[in-house]
């Protein structure tokens, strides 16, 4: 299977020429190095689509089956590649269908530029056909947004959009372009945006703070690192590795930070948070210095804030000043770019080993292995577990796959058990928890990293939220691997109902269609597995396939994800059963 690649040597210096606003949009995208965008045409964006047709040899537009699919695909592309994802939609419903993806990208700091068509300027505010105030609607879920009403604004605003989306703490930007502005002609000239006076993307790092942090780390007896997505966004994987290796500090990760340090690194002690590993959660409340790197102390990470790491000195390395003291009070805030901060910190640190302290993490893991992991990965019961499926994928892909998970039990199991050998390998909707994310995000991930194996792991619930994107996969001939872990339940909600609502399974049982037949309807090779002895071979067939492949695994219906920090409980009240 060949994936369409676009030549990259597009000239960025487009000298002055007379073009329509619609054509200007294309030149802007090319000048920003865009090779792929995802979208869905419609009335108010048609002039731009007409230009996309003319420039189809330079810009690959992917027609998804729904605008939500387009924006999630753009997110997957951005998350795997670190580049800005681009999505396009028409006005009205086209634009509102982007909103979930915008909110998802906003909370997970994903760089996106979304372009929407809008009714002509003279119709604004008149409740015209397919008019909606998308700028107003998207304000709380965008890093920045803007409505262009005349063509001459296009170059400057799009340049600014890309600059804002990718700089500092990244995020989604929406640009709404009225139809008249797409038709108008003007003298086009493009220069990249290099700064916005009211916006400081990266705050300056205070050297004194670095020295204070270094002093605390050097003195610490039980230091503990928790890193987040900031390490990936800041391209600081090597610095993180150097830091843990020089100081011997055990390091754990949030879901968004997964894969920044290989899973088999001896100092990688696992995942924190509600369904994270036992030791890093419990020991958060025993460490003496907590070093938070590019993470924001989400409530799913901290549990009850009143009992979170109260004994520890908290060092918070963060690019966004609004995150400092938002949830957890930082004793030493270190603002700035995390890569530069760690580089500045390293020479100030003493080489150390914390073997006894590290040992307590290993003991915690052993306890968790006996009580939870063994049963998840090597079950003795009849029903298949989600964990053994993920373990099978690890084996078949040699830990090299990009795992794109949806939301729910299978997501937690994927994040817990997937083994990562390289960075940018775990793509999931962390902050917003958007069911339906995985299938379209996997499309973008595969196109953003065509050389890598991309496996979408989806529950039977989330799968049916964006199942239509199978059409996109088929049309593109994209070799995305799709695994549906089918327990005929909205599993995570059912788990909560079992634990906290006395097994009143309100609206969580699903009567599902024949997923294999549906995949085959899209001409995607498909099979279903329900027996342990068939699992490994099926996974092997899927991974070996050089086309898209669908695998449904019938897993045990009423399995639960443990460990678990019940909502509102303290991290050290984590339950193993």
């Amino acid at each position, binding site marked *: 299977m060949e994936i369409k690649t676009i030549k990259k040597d597009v000239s960025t210096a487009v000298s002055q020429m007379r073009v329509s606003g619609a054509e200007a949009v294309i030149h802007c995208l090319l000048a920003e190095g865009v090779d792929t965008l995802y979208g869905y045409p419609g009335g108010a964006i048609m002039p731009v689509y007409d230009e996309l047709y003319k420039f189809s040899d330079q810009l690959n537009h992917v027609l998804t089956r729904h605008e939500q699919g387009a924006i999630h695909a753009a997110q997957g592309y951005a998350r795997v590649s670190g580049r800005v994802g681009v999505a396009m939609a028409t006005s009205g419903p086209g634009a509102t269908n982007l909103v979930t993806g915008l909110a998802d990208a906003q909370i997970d700091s994903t760089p996106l530029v979304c372009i929407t068509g809008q009714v002509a300027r003279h119709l604004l505010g008149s409740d015209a056909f397919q008019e909606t105030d998308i700028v107003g609607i998207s304000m709380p879920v965008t890093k920045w947004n803007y409505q262009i009403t005349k063509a001459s604004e296009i170059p400057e605003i799009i340049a600014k959009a890309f600059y804002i989306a990718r700089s500092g703490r990244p995020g989604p930007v929406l640009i709404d372009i009225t139809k008249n502005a797409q038709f108008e002609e003007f003298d086009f000239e493009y220069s990249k945006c290099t*700064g916005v006076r009211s916006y400081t993307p990266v705050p300056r790092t205070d050297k004194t703070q670095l020295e204070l942090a270094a002093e605390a780390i050097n003195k610490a007896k039980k230091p503990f690192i928790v890193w987040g997505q900031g390490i990936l966004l800041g391209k600081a994987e090597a610095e993180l590795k150097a830091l843990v290796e020089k100081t011997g500090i055990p390091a754990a990760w949030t879901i968004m930070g997964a894969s920044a340090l290989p899973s088999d690194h001896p100092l990688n002690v696992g995942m924190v948070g509600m369904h994270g590993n036992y030791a890093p959660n419990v020991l958060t409340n025993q460490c003496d210095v907590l070093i938070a790197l590019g993470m924001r102390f989400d409530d799913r990470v901290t549990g009850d804030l009143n009992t979170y790491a109260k004994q520890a000195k908290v060092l918070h390395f963060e690019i966004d000043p609004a995150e400092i003291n938002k949830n957890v009070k930082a004793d030493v805030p270190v603002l700035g770019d995390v890569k530069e901060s760690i580089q500045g910190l390293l020479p100030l640190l003493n080489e150390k080993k914390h073997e006894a302290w590290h040992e307590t993490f290993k003991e915690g893991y052993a306890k968790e292995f006996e009580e939870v992991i063994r049963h998840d990965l090597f079950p003795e019961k009849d029903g298949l577990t989600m964990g053994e499926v993920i373990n099978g994928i690890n084996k078949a892909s040699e830990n090299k796959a990009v795992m794109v998970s949806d939301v729910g039990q299978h997501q937690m199991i994927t994040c817990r058990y997937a083994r990562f050998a390289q960075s940018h390998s775990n793509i999931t909707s962390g902050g917003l928890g958007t069911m339906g994310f995985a299938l379209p995000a996997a499309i973008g991930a595969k196109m953003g990293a065509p050389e890598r194996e991309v496996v979408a792991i989806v529950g039977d619930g989330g799968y049916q939220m964006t199942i239509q994107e199978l059409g996109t996969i088929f049309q593109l001939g994209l070799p995305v691997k799709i695994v549906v872990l089918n327990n005929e339940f909205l599993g995570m909600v059912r788990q909560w109902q079992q634990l906290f609502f006395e097994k009143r399974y309100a609206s969580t049982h699903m009567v599902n269609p024949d997923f294999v037949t549906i995949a085959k309807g899209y001409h995607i090779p498909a099979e279903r597995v329900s027996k342990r002895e068939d699992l490994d071979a099926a996974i092997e067939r899927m991974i070996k396939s050089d086309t898209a492949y669908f695998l449904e695994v019938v897993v045990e219906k009423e399995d639960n994800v443990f460990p678990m920090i019940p909502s509102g409980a303290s991290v050290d009240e984590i339950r193993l059963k």
Partner: protein
Amino acid sequence: MEETKTYTISIYTENSVGLLNRISGIFVKRHINIESINVSESEIDHVMRFIIVVHTTETWVKNIVGQIEKQIDVIRAYYHGDEEIIYLQTGLFKIASHLLFDERQIQNIIKESHAQIVTVSREFFVITKSGRKEEIEALYEALKPFGIMQFVRTGRVSVSKAEMEISSLLKAFIH
């Protein structure tokens, strides 16, 4: 529980459409009622200044100011307690003209309150009073028994006692 207090938030911004919506959204998210809001030009050309008064805890006002400041078009945001600023509001009162002659007491009230007469016509006259909210409220209460045709009060405007380094911040920006 942390004590709540009145805080005045000063925000210097670019003059861009929709920014008010972005800023007010931050208060909505936390379910904080805006006591008063005023938007005007500032001492710097083309830079707007918002003055927003809220009643909340210092922790929250800090968080809110951080989240306001990270909006792209916001240049800088500050918060102050009442003791750190000079502030006032203005009230306008429209009153029937005949009362001025029928109710001699009104003339005394106007004099004592240091209110100013803005305009007088055959039918009505308008007085204005600037000062603290309580002073304007006191005038309102004093005039109320005689009948007020219309009353309106502006949002708080304020200047800080300490310097706010906006100009130097903008000068430092090299495009």
